């Protein structure tokens, strides 16, 4: 079998993923510094995971003969601009839930692309195991915050950030066009659903978007 070669767009995209993970680590490092109580464990772990994910992408690029390079901005940079700054811990977790859903959706689509390099596939699969855990603890934490913030308020926050995410995603696709071609390709997403769920568990709705098994954050699908 011929191993697919990385195109220039592939290299750009892997660097984009890498930057996103670096930004995620920086963000969760900030939150890990100030979170109190039992959440300290999960948030600190999340921070470490994001840093590891950045390392995985760095190693992947290096293994494939490419040096990581700087990009002007990442996904999260536009996020706060469009979504606004989260002002409390609940909003931090709400925006995290939405963002993690997006990340999982993007990575899943990348995995489904038939031309994905085995080394890239390996990297995404490794990252996805952590992302699944992130979704779980964030979901639980948001449920536990209902007493303090109110379930309706949490749901509104998730809806707000979901709308912002859609806007940012649409802008990103529009701006970077062909770089994301494989993510917007019209191929059958359902073909591998059973195999995927066997590996990662039944997290997804029919569109391959993680289904958050709670009343919180329902309804959003990736555009």
């Amino acid at each position: 079998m011929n191993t697919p070669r990385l195109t220039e767009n592939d290299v750009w995209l892997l660097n984009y993923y890498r930057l996103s993970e670096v930004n995620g680590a920086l963000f969760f490092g900030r939150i890990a510094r100030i979170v109190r109580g039992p959440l300290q464990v999960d948030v600190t772990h999340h921070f470490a995971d994001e840093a590891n994910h950045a390392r995985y992408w760095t190693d992947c690029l290096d293994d494939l003969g490419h040096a990581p390079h700087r990009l002007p901005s990442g996904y999260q940079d536009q996020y706060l601009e469009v979504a606004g700054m989260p002002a409390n811990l609940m909003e931090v977790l709400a925006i995290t839930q939405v963002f993690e859903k997006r990340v999982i959706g993007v990575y899943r689509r990348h995995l489904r692309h038939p031309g994905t390099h085995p080394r890239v596939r390996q990297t995404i699969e490794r990252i996805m195991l952590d992302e699944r855990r992130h979704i779980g603890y964030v979901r639980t934490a948001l449920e536990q915050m209902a007493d303090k913030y109110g379930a309706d308020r949490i749901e509104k926050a998730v809806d707000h950030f979901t709308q912002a995410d859609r806007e940012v995603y649409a802008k990103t696709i529009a701006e970077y066009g062909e770089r994301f071609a494989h993510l917007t390709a019209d191929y059958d997403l359902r073909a591998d659903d059973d195999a995927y769920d066997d590996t990662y568990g039944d997290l997804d709705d029919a569109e391959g978007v993680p289904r958050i098994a709670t009343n919180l954050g329902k309804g959003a699908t990736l555009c």
Partner: protein
Amino acid sequence: MLTRTTFDEVADRISALIGLPAGRIGPDTALSALAVDSFRMVELVVDLQEEFDSAFGQAELALVSTVGELADLLAGESATASAAGAPRPVPTEAG
């Protein structure tokens, strides 16, 4: 009503987080003048909320521009939270 103690506590906490001497943080100090990036601002605001057990959201935060106003918000939310059994106000916008 903002008390001197509350403002001092907020200023001290901001000072500790960003390394700016507390004496240089006054009620009229603009939040934008604290010279922190967006991630650090999130850390700052969330830390203050956790410290003062308040729960205001984006909508309320968008209305404040100075450290004094932020301290007022924290004091107001804390007073609301400490009222026996009083439900927290639910803002009309997300957050």
